């Protein structure tokens, strides 16, 4: 339950400044909020609404359209095991059972320490490398039950923290566009000139 932190607020303002209309920044801001807490809290949605000048209902309406935005607390690592045709044929079910046993939660659940959320997933477009899974949307291919054990061990000991950041972090490198390098697009309603290709000189 948290609004954006001081640090993220600075980033948020920079993101908002990139767009001619404030509310256009909503999706990147939702990612920012998800990065901060791993999920998007109600307080965060209220805060984003204030920042871009829309109601919280509009923020929620926009955010809930997208499946990868989460509104409930989620584990630091989201493990999605593919269960679609190719992976199913190559033993996805067995993998899932093994993961459930190892983590002590059913598919869809989160471990008590808040480290792992285990979930079923539809095809992840890696059928040639079946069975596959994703940890925070990072692939693991041709997975065996032993691989799952190793993966969980490595995540627990922090060995993979360089490769796999916590849930919500899209990229470890943040794009920063200094104000003087911004495109400075103007809002469509403020555009008075017609586009170059319509200014009459070109034969259409």
């Amino acid at each position, binding site marked *: 339950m948290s609004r954006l932190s001081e640090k993220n607020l600075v980033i948020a303002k920079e993101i908002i400044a990139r767009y001619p209309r404030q509310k256009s920044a909503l999706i990147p801001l939702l990612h920012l909020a998800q990065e901060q807490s791993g999920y998007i809290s109600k307080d965060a949605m209220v805060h984003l609404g204030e920042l871009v000048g829309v109601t919280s*209902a*509009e923020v929620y309406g*926009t955010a*809930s359209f997208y499946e990868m935005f989460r509104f409930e607390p989620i584990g630091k690592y989201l493990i999605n095991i593919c269960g679609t045709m190719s992976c199913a044929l190559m033993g996805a079910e067995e993998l899932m059972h093994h993961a459930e046993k190892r983590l002590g939660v059913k598919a869809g659940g989160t471990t008590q320490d808040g480290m792992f959320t285990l979930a079923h997933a539809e095809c992840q477009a890696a059928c040639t490398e079946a069975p596959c899974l994703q940890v925070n949307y990072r692939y693991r291919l041709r997975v065996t039950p032993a691989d799952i054990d190793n993966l969980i061990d490595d995540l627990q000991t922090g060995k993979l923290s360089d490769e796999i950041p916590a849930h919500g972090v899209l990229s470890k490198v943040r794009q920063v566009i200094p104000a003087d390098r911004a495109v400075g697009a103007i809002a469509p309603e403020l555009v008075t000139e017609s586009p170059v290709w319509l200014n009459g000189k070109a034969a259409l």
Partner: protein
Amino acid sequence: MTIVDPEKIVVDPNLVNITINDKPVVARKGEVIIAAADRTDDFIPRFCYHPRMSSVGMCRQCLVEVETPRGPMMVVSCMTPVAEGQIVRTATDNVKKAQEGVLELLLANHPLDCPVCDKGGECPLQDQAFSHGPGESRFVEEKRHYEKPIAISDIVYLDRERCILCDRCTRFADEVAGDPLISFTSRGNDTQVMTFPEEPFSSYFSGNTVQICPVGALTAKPYRFKARPWDLNETETTCTSCSVGCRIVVQSSRDELVRFQGVDVDPVNWGWLCDRGRYNFESVNSTERITTPLIKSDSGLVQSSWSVALDSAARIIRHALANNADSVAILGGARGTNEDAFAWAMLADELKVNQRDSQLGDGLTPEIFNLAQATIDETCAASTIILLSPDLKEELPVLYLRIRDAAQKRKSRIIEFSSHDSGLTPYAWRSVAFEPGRQAQVVRETLETKDMQEQIQRGEVVVVVGRANLAENEAFTLHALGEVLHAIPNAKILPVLRRGNVRGAVAVGLTPQQNSGDAIDILTKAAAGKIDCLILLGANPLADVADSILVKQALAQIRNVISIDTFITSSNQNADVVLPAAAFAEKNGTTTNLEGRVSNVTQQITPRGTSRPDWMIATELGLSLGIDLGVSSLDELHQKMISAIPEFASCDNEAAIQSDGVLMIHDALATISRGSKVLVDRNSYDYRLIVSRTMYDAAQSTITSNSLVGIITESTIYVHPLDLARIGVVDGTNIRVGVDEINIVLPVRAHSGIHRGTAWLPYNHTNVDIRPLLNIAADVIDVRIEQIK
């Protein structure tokens, strides 16, 4: 035979000729096919299309065929603009198949609970399933299930199972009301209309979403399970809750009001209503209504008969008049019909009672009605709208919708002068703040600036003027208006005064006569013991007049009070005679709205008990006093009024009065001069008070409406967040607010729309009475705000 030179035929460049089902139709450029088809006999089925909102093509029900070079093409007629020579077919086999297909899909998840659904019988989905549906469904699977109706606000319930996702309510909330508190959430099969978790759809206009919902997904608490549409009786009338005068349909069942619906009339409300106007009919049905005449006895008010009560009222008036003609005064009369007010004005004329006022010290001088006037339409078409008015969203909600639309979708720009942020502030081109009492100076300086001058030159200017602050002398508003008219002599004004029929009441003469004083003067005289008899026409001065100390003194001094009212109020509970008046929808007549538009109000139900219309009470009381007003029917009275009152000479058009209304005649004779009122500076430790009304205050019609009474909030004072820090308390703590030796205790809240050094105090809320602070003789009121130690 005359021969027309073809060169001389002027063709409107905006007209487009199209063909719908082989019949020629003239359409306007930019119009969509369905709008053009609505002017013909060919009905195109639809759910999401609404002529007052933008098209979204959400439901796909309005598919038609348009001829193209490659043959007929299926298009949605609510999204396809007309084009010259376009050939449209709305009922070919292909179109029918497509429309049936869409309906079958819409019905796939729609529960068939029509027998228990409030919408059943008047449901566009039900009707069009019959007229344009396939008749059967191939969908045998389990339908989607949601929790049955959930309350999304105090008034509105949402049943998501019935929803067909047409986007009408969400579009209305966003586009028309400007309160996008409901939105589509999730996607695909899970898409649903929802509020933000735990944040209700608390819009002042939420009832409109219920009216425009094409299925039974949205229902309103006051009407749920009350009646079936085929059992309803209805009549078209004009709402008199405020002076906008929205056209409505009043529906009743078994002689009880059950629902009001907005009627789409072009000059006024476009079909929209505010929730107060839509739902306060419950007060008409209230069991607390007075149903018989009451007279004072040793044990308080006791029931009586009309003859006894009228005799005793007549005796009181005769006795007072015998003393002195100036010892009788009449207050009120702005809540009834023109005819009611006219009958009372006639009676007052006969009795030579000059002390009468239908405004209760919270309006402006009637002289502003003699300035050049604008209608609502002219206001919304003006290039500049200057606001010197109360918060229109709170006081005249549907006028707010019209002006918001003018600023958002049309070319008008709003220049707002206000002491605190109003509902229109977000839509204003410029919003200029002033400290109460300083508006004239602020207006003068603002209008001198270059960009204001340029804006004013762009075209028509209309000034919306009304009493924004009850803790401020009305002269300040008039002086500010004088400044505007000095800078822009051609500007027209739209006067926005309180109470439904204040313009009509003033026009027929319920306003101070022969230089006698206004309501405040009358009460001041009364407090000095100079008034023997006060007649209250639906007025409750203890609630309506800002200065409660003055009113209490006055009521204590007045020997006799005669009250004509629908309820026992704080002012008439000790009256000598209380005569029960017929309420709205219980009587016929005409009413005048703020722009001077006269339209009819009609009777739909029998008056409760033995209550009678005010005009009838006036004539009968006249007879008891030996005065014959010469009217025995409402028609006679109406005819007498339009021949006696020059402003109403235009009102002999029965048909127009029963639809869009007729504008009263008015001569723009008066001018208003600039003035300079010297104002004492505010002590920097004090806060200057802004007292204004909100939509849900403790008005009689709101507290007696079961669905609205819970929405009324407790008295609270609002200050700027930095001022709250200066006072040194946290948000919501009780603090002491004082003027001189008067102190009241109430909660304080931070509000960023309030400017530093001022405090906003909503008028007439529950729990704490703020009126003792409001000394009406003061120019402005500065208060201390202190922590309670």
